[in-house]
């Protein structure tokens, strides 16, 4: 979805303000949110893509007004309710004064954190692209989850590395299948992304195969290392 979370290239947020001697957490509630998130994948039955999408679904104004762990908390509440782990009514009732903290001590069952599932897949569908291939990020605007940021859509880049096969977030976030496919490091010229006045430089981003199409522009003046003959043959043999 074209949400406010897709921030690459936006202006107006001001300078980056590093905090000296920053603690790992700034308040105890942040610790609890972090830990609940780490433990909840197992019993709540959601995956990381779904969790990210739940954050993205926070209304833009609220997203921008919330701190990082507040957004995590909002996503946890959403998913726990959607997955039927708790109800909205239960959450609201518990938020009223006099929350029974004693019940924490009475908890009986211990759930170890679910081992983080490696989303890499050994079984390799054939790679459509090889190192050196010219590609274009597709102009996709899905209404659901995606890891294809707006600032690269429609832009031309070069495959610099094939990372192997990974679960596809766009479908996995919606329990619509894992659709494992190759994910590549794709390198873009800064001027392709930000225009001719941009400074010289490159941006590398990891993109799944479904986000990419072969670049058929064949610009003779292509500044990036032009795809080798071998690369082109490799692509044709697909």
């Amino acid at each position: 979805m074209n949400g406010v979370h897709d921030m690459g290239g936006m202006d107006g947020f001001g300078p980056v303000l590093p905090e000296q001697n920053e603690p790992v957490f700034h308040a105890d509630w942040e610790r609890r949110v972090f830990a609940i998130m780490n433990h909840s994948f197992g019993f709540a039955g959601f995956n990381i893509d779904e969790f990210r999408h739940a954050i993205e679904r926070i209304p833009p104004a609220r997203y921008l007004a919330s701190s990082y762990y507040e957004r995590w908390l909002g996503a946890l509440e959403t998913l726990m309710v959607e997955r039927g782990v708790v109800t909205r009514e239960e959450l609201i009732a518990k938020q009223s004064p006099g929350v029974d903290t004693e019940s924490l001590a009475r908890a009986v069952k211990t759930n170890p954190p679910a081992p983080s599932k490696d989303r890499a897949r050994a079984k390799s569908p054939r790679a459509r692209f090889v190192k050196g291939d010219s590609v274009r990020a597709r102009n996709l605007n899905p209404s659901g989850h995606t890891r294809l940021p707006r600032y690269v859509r429609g832009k031309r880049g070069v495959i610099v590395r094939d990372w192997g096969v990974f679960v596809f977030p766009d479908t996995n976030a919606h329990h619509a299948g894992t659709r494992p496919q190759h994910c590549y490091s794709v390198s873009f010229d800064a001027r392709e992304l930000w225009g001719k006045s941009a400074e010289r430089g490159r941006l590398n981003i990891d993109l799944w195969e479904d986000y990419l199409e072969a670049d058929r522009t064949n610009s003779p003046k292509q500044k990036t290392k032009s795809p080798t003959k071998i690369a082109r043959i490799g692509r044709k043999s697909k």
Partner: protein
Amino acid sequence: MSENHHDTSESGPVARVKALETLLAEKGLLDPAAIDAVVDTYETKVGPRNGARVVAKAWTDPAYRKRLLDDATAAVAELGYAGPEGGHLVAIENTDRVHNLVVCTLCSCYPWPVLGLPPVWYKSFAYRSRAVSDPRGVLKDFGTELPSDVEIRVWDSSAEIRYLVIPQRPAGTEKMTADELAEIVTRDSMVGVTNVAAPSRRGDKSKRAGK
């Protein structure tokens, strides 16, 4: 900035977290002791000291540096570091010609096993938005000025790969041991927003160690 505001009032996230945690505990889904354990891990065991040891070893052991560049996940595991957000680590080295900078524009992906949990600035909207379009300006926010002929290479960690920058070893540190070097490698240098500075005086070491 509102995004950096940490609400501690009872009507805000404090009450909401307590409600959620209480409900999960009542349903027998969550053990508060397990919560404390995971918090303790990230407050006391996993942090940028891990990454600093990796970098210092890479600076002093060419064979290790090669293994790190070939397969960072395995090389980092040699030092005992592994875990969530560290299944697919990639080390990228700064050179005289290329300076690397890591960001996650869509959320805040970060290599937890080597750097710990990300600082607020890494998660800030300012960093997520501008690191890709104005990397040199972002570096200036950190007081980092690079020669104009150094290419800045930004890495947007949008998928499963988590990046660790190997900063350049500063001149004047030739006689330092790996342990001493690990003391001067900062978190920010391993994200790529700063360079590592040589200690101005060797006598400062105790101060740095206490940090």
